[in-house]
């Protein structure tokens, strides 16, 4: 497991208290789990993702991430419609460990309400949360 100072937390992302990240790109957004989350879970063995076309509210569970001995639910940081899921994770769930922000992305959505992103934490606020959890 990584120490806090070892974690990678890109500045251009927004984060949730349940350790998901969002990257907005125009009218779409990509979602995944943070370096802290993948480090806590350990070797990820399976990722359960929704179907393209599924609709979720902010805060709703949209999938699960499994390590050998644990299961973690993942929650939507913002509400929206699923446009794409990272099919590569079916064969290579370890991508979430290796590169949680790029190759290890989970879903791409069309956000219902982009203002929900503003309510999320930036890098500094998220780092404070992690330090508080120590």
């Amino acid at each position: 497991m990584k120490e806090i100072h070892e974690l990678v937390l890109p500045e251009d992302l927004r984060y949730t208290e349940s350790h998901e990240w969002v990257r907005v790109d125009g009218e779409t957004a990509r979602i995944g789990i943070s370096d802290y989350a993948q480090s806590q879970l350990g070797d990820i063995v399976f990722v359960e993702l929704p179907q393209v076309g599924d609709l979720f509210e902010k805060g709703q569970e949209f999938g699960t991430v499994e390590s050998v001995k644990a299961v973690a639910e993942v929650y939507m940081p913002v509400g929206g419609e699923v446009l794409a899921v990272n099919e590569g994770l079916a064969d290579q769930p370890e991508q979430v460990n290796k590169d949680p922000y790029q190759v290890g992305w989970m879903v791409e959505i069309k956000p219902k309400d982009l203002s929900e992103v503003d309510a999320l934490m930036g890098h500094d606020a998220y780092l404070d949360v992690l330090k508080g959890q120590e």
Partner: protein
Amino acid sequence: MSEMQGTTGLVLNEPLLWEKGRKGREGFSLPVRDVDPAPLPEDFVVEGPDLPDLSEVDVVRHYTRLSQWNFGVDTGMYPLGSCTMKYNPKLHEVMAGLAGFAGAHPMLPEPLCQGALELMYELQTALAEITGLDAVTLQPAAGAQGELTGMLLIHAYHESRDSKRTKIIVPDTAHGTNPASAALCGYRPVPVASGEEGVLSAETVDRIMDEETAGIMITNPNTLGLFEENVREIAEAVHAKGGLVYGDGANMNAVMGIVDMGRIGVDVLHLNLHKTFSTPHGGGGPGSGPVCVSRALEPFLPIPRIQKLGDRYGLAEDFPQSVGRLQAFYGNFGVMIKAYAYIRSMGAADLKKASRLAVLNANYIKERLKGVYHLPYDRPCMHECVFTDKHLKASKLTTLDVAKRLMDYGFHPPTIYFPLVVQGALMVEPTETESMDEVDRFIDAMHAIAREAEERPDLLLNAPTHCRLRRLDETTAARRPCLKG
């Protein structure tokens, strides 16, 4: 300690079953064919399953070698918390194998199976007496099925009173089967946290308990090895709002002859014959999970029920409020024989003594390890005690590494990472069948490992080195499952 118990022996490699054998070999003595072939419809003509052909010698060598890769209670101490890995008496295996027991069909006409029915009836009576409850079903095949039965009984009870209840209180120290069994019954588990002392408080339960809650599932002693001191008040709080108390009796080994579950206010309790009552664990079963209930729940017990009329025993199904059947027949009779034999061998005084000595062994281990391993609850424990790996934090070693190194010392590790409320839990339950010398050897090994953690952490990280295999890659096994050959 002069020599480590866990040195290697002559343990041979052995391939998979289908990598052995040769087409045409025989391992079975086919009975004499004394009838003509009967006509066979065409669509029956199949190749037959692709099973390897092995000689009897092939089969025996195969399984003999495999058995040598296993560590059982007969090999050494197995201090798995909440599993009660006590000694399995050899006499019981012989008794279960008696032709009249092993060869009895479950649907024999009653006059032809009085012996089996009598044994079950007497076992029921004994379990009711031991727990202080009123009626018993022996049908559930294991603890988890006993829990499901308990949930069904509670559900039926509330239904009979037209009381719609959707939730059940489950402590944070509960075994995973508790919420899983509750969910099977349509109950939503409502968690309740144990207090700072490691036990539940009646006030906390009372606050959560309401008219929509079916009751509470409580393990006593709990999985921290502590007696739930407030259990009577908790039961009262639950009963006051119309709920029932389910007792998970997995830890019964601490309290036989000492505690009266009926007096406590438990309405339904399951037992694990493969824990408290010495029947073998079998590498994962078969077990047996009888359920004992108070009079109020008796009408709902599964059918068939075993009854005694005069001096004859029989099976009865005419119980309209019964929750139904859980098993094709009456439960694991072959396991019941062993539990019955155990109870008849021990008698009341020695069963109580067993509990007292189990608790003595656990407290002794707790006292001698508490300086060396972090003890989260420094209080009298019951039959098991729980440590954490907090003292290892600096070395970056974990409970897992301690467990793996214990194997090299010739012990099965304790239960690890359960209960979840404790970080890096190491739950030690020696049981009463471990002598003082064996317990001392275990303590010495734990002390040695604690020293190694500071001076030679690599020994823990690389452990085990004396088993047949080193640590196994569970990640790949889960990522790319290969479940057959």
